[in-house]
């Protein structure tokens, strides 16, 4: 076998091995998307009921709460960025990071100081490499987040928002995550969690037009209910964002691995053609060498006869 042909054969073998790996990763991601979607669906009843309750308190009472009133002069904001622990997901992480950077820039242009809270090793690595300050980071659960993880993430954020701004607290809480629109589309979006704009919540929670929310009796009091309700609301929103981000990550991985598999297939095809060509060229050369050798021999013997 010629040297050229051997090189092609070797490359075909290595690309086939890679293709097998990417194919397996694609299938794993596909099964995980379904699981993650199911988790998103399972968490929906709680989120809807909670939103309803928040709306009920907000519309049914005149309670003023630090978490629902906007600071007159907001000077500090917290941004929570959700990325994944592992890469191989196409532009998933860089899209989320870019969205967070745009948001940070905008907030800074408005004269606010920004504290970055980051979930996922990818985001942490990105910020560390650029030597940006991270207020707090959380890693190790992005593939399959549980409610306890959401609570862990929410705790320092709630604490920061409840602290006075002068003492290192924040006035606003923003979240950047990747929304799972469909298997093919995931978009990085930003949302302001706190202070809660109640109109928005009311808009979201209204299932049918014209439904009037009943006048609730609060137990023990509207303030206490709101006090207990809002942290849960934040946790539930973060939980939902974590789940969506996980589903999006798996969908992005699936897509990236699918195109990697397709590319590997194409590469194998091209390499096989080249290898065939090389083999054919080798054979042609051998034949012409034999023919040339034979005719040279014939010429030589014909010459000695004379």
């Amino acid at each position, binding site marked *: 076998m010629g040297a050229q042909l051997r090189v092609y054969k070797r490359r075909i073998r290595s690309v086939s091995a890679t293709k097998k790996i990417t194919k397996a990763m694609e299938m794993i991601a596909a099964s995980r998307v379904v699981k993650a979607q199911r988790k998103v669906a399972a*968490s929906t*009843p*709680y989120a809807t009921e909670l939103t309803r309750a928040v709306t*009920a308190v907000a519309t049914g009472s005149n309670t003023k709460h630090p978490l629902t009133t906007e600071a007159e002069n907001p000077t500090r904001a917290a941004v929570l960025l959700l990325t994944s622990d592992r890469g191989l997901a196409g532009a998933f992480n860089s899209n989320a990071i870019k969205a967070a950077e745009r948001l940070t820039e905008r907030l800074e242009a408005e004269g606010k100081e920004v504290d970055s809270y980051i979930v996922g090793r990818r985001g942490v690595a990105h910020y560390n490499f650029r030597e940006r300050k991270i207020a707090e980071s959380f890693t190790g659960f992005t593939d399959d987040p549980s409610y306890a993880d959401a609570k862990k993430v929410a705790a320092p954020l709630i604490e920061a928002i409840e602290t006075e701004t002068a003492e290192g607290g924040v006035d606003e809480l923003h979240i950047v995550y990747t929304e799972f629109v469909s298997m093919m589309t995931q978009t990085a979006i930003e949302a302001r969690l706190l202070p809660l704009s109640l109109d928005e919540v009311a808009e979201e929670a209204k299932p049918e037009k014209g439904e009037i929310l009943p006048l609730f009796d609060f137990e*023990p009091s509207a303030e*206490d209910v709101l006090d207990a309700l809002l942290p849960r609301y934040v946790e539930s929103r973060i939980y939902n964002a974590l789940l969506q981000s996980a589903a999006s990550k798996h969908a992005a991985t699936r897509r990236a691995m699918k195109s990697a598999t397709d590319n590997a297939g194409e590469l194998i095809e091209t390499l096989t053609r080249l290898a065939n060509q090389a083999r054919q060229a080798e054979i042609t050369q051998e034949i012409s060498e034999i023919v040339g050798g034979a005719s040279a021999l014939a010429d030589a013997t014909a010459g000695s006869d004379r």
Partner: protein
Amino acid sequence: MAAELHVALVAADREVWSGQATLVVARTTSGDIGVMPGHQPLLGVLESGPVTIRTSDGGTVVAAVHGGFISFADDKLSLLAEVAELSDEIDVQRVERELERAKAEDDAEAERRADVRLRAATAAR
């Protein structure tokens, strides 16, 4: 037909139980409260403790609820909890072991959780 209320017991990551009931007893921060059909709209903060639901077919469902909210309007009652378990999902022996361990380790939080579970499991009997 006797009036009924629709109950949904929802935990953060799943719907634990839902169905028709005639009476729901839960513990709010200001004391035990029983809700029957036609009750005035209510929104309250729940304490950790057992919640008893008397279903319309005469059965009783008991669940351990770890903090959360009760909200009632239009004969629809929702119990929201971060963590909620039905009493028949609770493994008494395991919880007893947990309780002992929590006591030994002086972990007040875990002790309270185990205690709530245990109370729910015994209340169902």
